[in-house]
Each structure stands twice: as C-alpha cells, then as structure tokens.
C-alpha cells in the first residue's frame, strides 16, 4: 500500500516539524525569579550501595567494602532538611523551615522524595542539610511535629535521643561476620553493626557538631527547570558504601558500634561524599 508517508520528502518534513516542536518545548523562556511565584520541586534520594541497589538483609549476596569486609544492611534512615536552590545568576531561595524536614527511610520507598515548593526558575545548584539544624534541635516541644515528633518511630526506628536531647541524623544498621562476639563487637552474637550519628553542637554546653551542609552542582547532570505546569525532580544517588569507603575509611570489625563517640565526627565527614547527582527529570 502506498501512502504519503512512503514519500521520503514528506517524512523529512514531518521529522523536522517533530524536532522543532520538541525543541520549542525545551527552549522555554526562564521565568522571572519571584519569591511568591512558587512551583513544585522534588529531590529524590535513591539509596544505593556502591555499584548495586539497596536490598535489605541480602545474606546470600552481601555487599563488600573497600577493606574486603562482607556486610548486609538492616536499617537505613536519615534526616534531610533546610533545602535551598540557587540559579546560575546566584539568586537563591530557602524553603520555609516549617516544611523543610524529611525523614528518608530506606525500607519505605514512599519516603524517598523531599517535596518542596520553590519559585519558578532554572536552578544550577541544590543545597541541603544531612541532619537537623541546631535551631530546630533546640526548639520548644510544640514545634517538634511530624517526623520531628519525639514520639515518632516504632520499635528501633526512633530518631530522637531522650537522655541527650537531640536527633539522630543518620541511622545505619546491619550485620557482618567480621564482628566479634565479645564486648568490643556484639555480645549478643548477632554480629550487628550500628551507626547512629547525631550531635548538633550543644544547647548551651558545646558538643560535637555533625551537621553536614551538602551542596550539589546540577550543571553536569541537568539543571532543574521548575515550572508550575510540571514536576521537576532532582534525582540523587545516595551511596551508603561511602560510610565505610569515604575519606575517613574504617573497618567494621574495628568500629562496629558508633553512637555517643567522638568517632561519629570521622564518619560524618564521609557524608559529604554520599550524594551524587545522577540526572534531573524536568
């Protein structure tokens, strides 16, 4: 059957038109930066482990860190807060703190997005805090709602320290056969590791400050074009292998439990390497 489409010239014209229309969508004009002209933006925290996806308790195929230690993961939770975006022109917008606290839970895919509203615009840089800032960490109990409610969290998934008032920023637990059964390891014999990293700098008595400000350059992976009629999504990979393999690399066998310990600051320094911008869906 002969149709008009069999004509090569017509095909070229149709392709050209299609290309032009798709281009015209992408080449939309950057809206003027107005703090009140808010549109949706999401940041996706996609947890990975080195070159592999995150799976819990995968004893048949454990992960292996740089020190050669095999391990599995049973819990991964962390706070993301104080989201800020910046344009190429240096205009920045900080999300209202009352709606800028997110608890990302590795075992609950629904929690992987931090959804915020920012002015329409093209953003080349994303900044956020891994943890809970010191101001919010010292606020009255009425302000501690939602994910910051000290009562939130079943069983062992709570993120608030009652006896040393503050939040756990990053909770990472799992198992490894390299852990000893004595008091230096896990005396219960479950070969469990626990990394609970908190400390916001102290209320009035100074303590460690493990709050980490993370800035991600979006220019290589794709800038975020925030518009009212669509959902821009900044897709980040969060590589928890870097907890062990970052600049302050360590062995699970030597430090299987780190909570109230100066070593937390060495682990927290590795957090800077956790986040990698993969791409942006506009």
């Amino acid at each position, binding site marked *: 059957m002969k149709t008009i489409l069999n004509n090569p010239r017509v095909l070229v014209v149709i392709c050209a038109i299609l290309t032009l229309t798709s281009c015209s969508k992408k080449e939309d004009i950057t809206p003027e930066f107005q703090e009140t002209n808010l549109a949706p933006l999401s940041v996706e925290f996609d947890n990975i482990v080195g070159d592999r996806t995150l799976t819990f308790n995968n004893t048949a195929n454990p992960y292996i860190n740089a020190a050669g230690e095999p391990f599995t993961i049973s819990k991964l939770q962390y706070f993301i807060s104080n989201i800020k975006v910046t344009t190429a022109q240096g205009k920045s917008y900080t999300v209202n703190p009352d709606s800028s606290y997110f608890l990302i839970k590795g075992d609950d895919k629904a929690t992987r997005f931090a959804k915020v509203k920012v002015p329409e615009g093209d953003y080349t840089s994303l900044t956020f805090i891994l943890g809970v800032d010191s101001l919010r960490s010292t606020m*009255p109990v009425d302000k501690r*709602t939602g994910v910051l409610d000290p009562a939130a969290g079943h069983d062992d998934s709570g993120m608030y320290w*009652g006896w040393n008032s503050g939040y756990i920023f990053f909770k990472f637990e799992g198992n490894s056969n390299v852990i000893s059964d004595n008091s230096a390891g896990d005396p219960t014999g479950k070969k469990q590791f626990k990394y609970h990293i908190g400390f916001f700098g102290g209320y009035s008595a100074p*303590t460690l400050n493990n709050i980490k400000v993370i800035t991600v350059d979006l220019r290589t992976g794709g800038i975020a074009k925030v518009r009212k009629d669509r959902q821009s999504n900044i897709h980040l990979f969060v590589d928890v292998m870097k907890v062990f393999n970052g600049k302050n690399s360590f062995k699970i066998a030597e430090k299987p439990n780190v909570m109230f310990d*100066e070593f937390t600051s060495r682990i927290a320094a590795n957090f800077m390497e956790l986040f990698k911008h993969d791409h942006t869906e506009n």
Partner: protein
Amino acid sequence: MTGKHWTVLLFLGLFILACKKDNPVKEKVENWLGFIKPANFPEPEYNFANNPVTREGFALGKALFNEPRLSRNNTVTCASCHIQSSAFTQHGHDVSHGIDDRLGTRNSPPIMNLAWNKAFMWGGGVFDLDLQPIAPITNHEEMDEKLENVLTKLRAMRKYTGLFKSAFGSEEITTARFMKALSQFMLMCVSSNSKYDKVMRKEGGQTFTDDEMAGYLLFRDKCASCHREPLFTDGSFRNNGLAVSPIDDKGLYTTTLQASDKYKFKVPSLRNLQYTAPYMHDGRFLTLNAVFDHYHQQVQATPNLDPLLQQNGGLGISLSMETRRQLMAFLNTLNDTEFINNPLLAEE
C-alpha cells in the same frame, strides 16, 4: 398564677442561675493561685508564656505523674522514684530502682524548683523541662517504654481524653500536650517555705538561732559559690573531687564528649537535705557527715577538679567538728516541711 407570681419566679430563677455561675469562679480564686514566684527568688528560667500553668493542666500533669501506664508493663510511675515525702526523691536508694527491679546508675534527683533550672539530669543532656520526661520513660532501667506507646495507652482511656480536653480544649493527645502537662505539675513543685526563706522574707518575726547564724556565715564563706542562694545551686556542672566510681561515670562528658567536661556533675541544691539522703550523683554518701568528710579530706585530684577545691596548695575545704555542727544547724533551716506535706502536690 398571676403576672406578679411569674415575675417573682423569674427573679428567683435568675438569682439561682447567678449563684450557680458564681460558685466555680469563686472556688478558682480561692483554691487555685497558679505558679507564683516566691518573693525571695529570682525570675524563673522556664518560659511560662509558652505553657501557662492552669488548674486543669496541673491536674492532668499530676495524674500523669502518678500514672503507671508511662512504663512498659504499667508498674512504674514518676512518683515511684520521686516521692513527695522525700522531697520527690527515692529516699534510701543510692541509685534509682526502676522497672523489673532494674537499677540505674544515678541517684534520683528531687523534683523541686525546676522552674529555675537551666539544665536537667546529673550529666546534662536535657535543657528543656518539656523534653526531660522522655529520658526516664524511655530509659531501659527506669520505665523502659516508648513515648508513642504511652500516648496510645492514654488515648484509649476516657479519663485522659477528658482531662486533656479540659486542659487543652480538645481530646487530642499529642507529644507536646503530654509533655506540657507534666511540666505544669513539676513547675508547681516549689520549695520556698523553709525557715531560711521565712527569715529572709522577714515573715512572722522568724530569726536564726546563734548556731544557725554562725552556720550561715560559714556556709557563705565555704559553700555559697557553688550552692548559690536562694536556690542553693548555681546550676553549673563541676567536678567536686569524688573518687572515680567503679563504672567510671564521666558525668557531663557523657553528653558533650568534651574532655574538659569529664567528671563534672550538676551542682545539687542544698534544700531539703533531711529528706533526700543518700547524697551525690550515685548516692554514695549515706549521711551529711560523710559529705563533710569528703570535702574535708577525701577530695581527689581527678581531671577537671574544680579550682575552688584546690586553693592554698591543698585539696578540699577544711571543716572542723565545730564548723560541721554549725553548718548542720544552718542546713536544717533549709528543710521545708510545707513542701513535703503540701496536699496540692499529693497523689489523690
């Protein structure tokens, strides 16, 4: 019935209504005074603007303070370790005795004059009274419960939905309301009617005896820089030279991880010592004489020993037998029988 009769009845009715309305108001004025700053006390630290103490909030707080459902197996209340007759401590226990007969590592501190506290717990870590009860509720050795479970248990009880409604306007039970109600009860635990207070306020012509006066002057010379009047604590954390305990409790360091905080503990008040033995963060001294012995000749040069305890080339504070006798006379004027017998604070 004539129109006249109706008028009389109407007035009678109005009169009855007026009386009915008047009574609760009158009762409130007579029985509920709220939080009152004692005349000889400084301004409180607690932010009352964010949590005004009301009669209903206080009543809820008192019910919660005496509520065993705050513990995992519904056996331990706040009042278990904070007994009014012992000035809200657990008299006779060196360390607190909690759920399943488990023992803590520290001596139960008094619930007393907390409105003036800047920091809570012997080793710090909590700086807001509204967040303090989470520590004992969730502590393995004390109540061993999850805050979320406590709220779930309370929500299922008509008693509490009613109490929360009268205190906060609706039946909703939230973390903030729960904590604020507990604070309201604890804030009302004010000890300010000891003989010392009455002497200072020149009430009823009370004066110190010669021994008490001599003891007061000795106190001001030897003790007052840490145990500052009128609260008898300056609220700071200091190392008073106790020998390091077998469990090596490092005090403030456990919450700050700063080497300069090792072995520092919160300076306790000297009020109501008669009811609060044993003494120190781990209750190691059973009598005040043992405390005197410590300051006189047992102070040890552990890291961060307070400079006030290492003056003139020696350690500690010289306390002769006569000094101790006079100091005891003064310290006894800090015991407040009205506080430990106050029916407002008693479990109903």
